[in-house]
């Protein structure tokens, strides 16, 4: 008979705990192409129908020369790519906030983006909660930075505090 006692690998807590992260640790996600489909769907989802995203005739005469992806679409896809690395699965207690979010270059339909993250700060609160700050850069297929931010998270501790 097979080893019935063997526990299957649980996918519930696959992420790294607070103690597993070190300052300077980095991750790089897969890439994903942002297409017209994403922009149209995001305009519907968010209700942001600003013509720079939705009206090609208008956008042709504008700063980007064509429709451009919403900044928050780029941000949301970036966070999805990070999530798929499973480094935070089951171990994020809360996403506390963002600082210094910059949209430095437009993302146009057909551009591919990936996220590059690095631990820049670790600290414990007075109640023993673990807080980690990550610097995340989003780069396109030409290696140009399109966005950057600092994300601050409360990450579970091994001791279960």
């Amino acid at each position, binding site marked *: 008979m097979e080893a019935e006692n063997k526990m299957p690998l649980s996918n519930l807590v696959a992420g790294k705990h607070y103690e597993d992260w070190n300052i300077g640790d980095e991750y790089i996600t897969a890439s994903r192409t942002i297409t017209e489909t994403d922009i149209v769907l*995001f305009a519907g*989802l*968010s209700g942001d*129908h600003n013509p720079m995203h939705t009206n090609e005739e208008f956008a042709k005469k504008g700063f980007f020369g064509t429709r451009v992806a919403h900044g928050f679409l780029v941000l949301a896809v970036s966070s*999805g790519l990070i*999530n798929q690395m499973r480094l935070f699965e089951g171990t994020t207690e809360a996403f506390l906030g*963002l600082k210094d979010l910059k*949209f430095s270059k437009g993302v146009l339909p057909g551009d591919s983006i990936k996220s590059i993250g690095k631990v820049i700060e670790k600290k414990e609160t007075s109640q023993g909660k673990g807080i980690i700050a990550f610097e995340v850069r989003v780069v396109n297929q030409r290696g140009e930075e399109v966005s950057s931010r600092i994300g601050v998270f409360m990450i579970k501790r091994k001791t279960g505090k």
Partner: protein
Amino acid sequence: MGSKDIAGKYYEDWELGEEYETAATTVTEAHVWINMYLTGYYSLIHTDIDYAKSTIFGERVAPGFLVHSISTGQVNQTRLFEGTTIAFLGIKYINFVKPVKIGDTIKTVGKLIEKKDSKKPGRGIVVFHARVVNQRGETVTESERIILLRKKIGFENI
């Protein structure tokens, strides 16, 4: 006469301290689920009812970025920025103050806190303090948003 593409306010038309308040949107399971499909953000706190019960929130919550995305949509629907936004430059900070649960209704309240001419002609930078507020009047997120706006003249010369 202005083009019909441009319903928004130009840089010169905004005054420090000016406020806006958007219409409200109920954040539904559809928003959270479609956001999950679109972004690949399958984190259990947003997408698994049983897991969510075991957390400090007790039920599924909307991702902070989704709440903020709906907020930027609400602001654009006021038409105050239509055709006059050159680019969304960034955000100084976003604080996720309270969770937004499926079924909560949110709206955005904004105030112009900074105006700065750009060195380049035809454009200026504005900073808005924006609070997203739920149906109980509680602030759920707070942020400062930086936008590059068109001036009435000089933009064509860029």
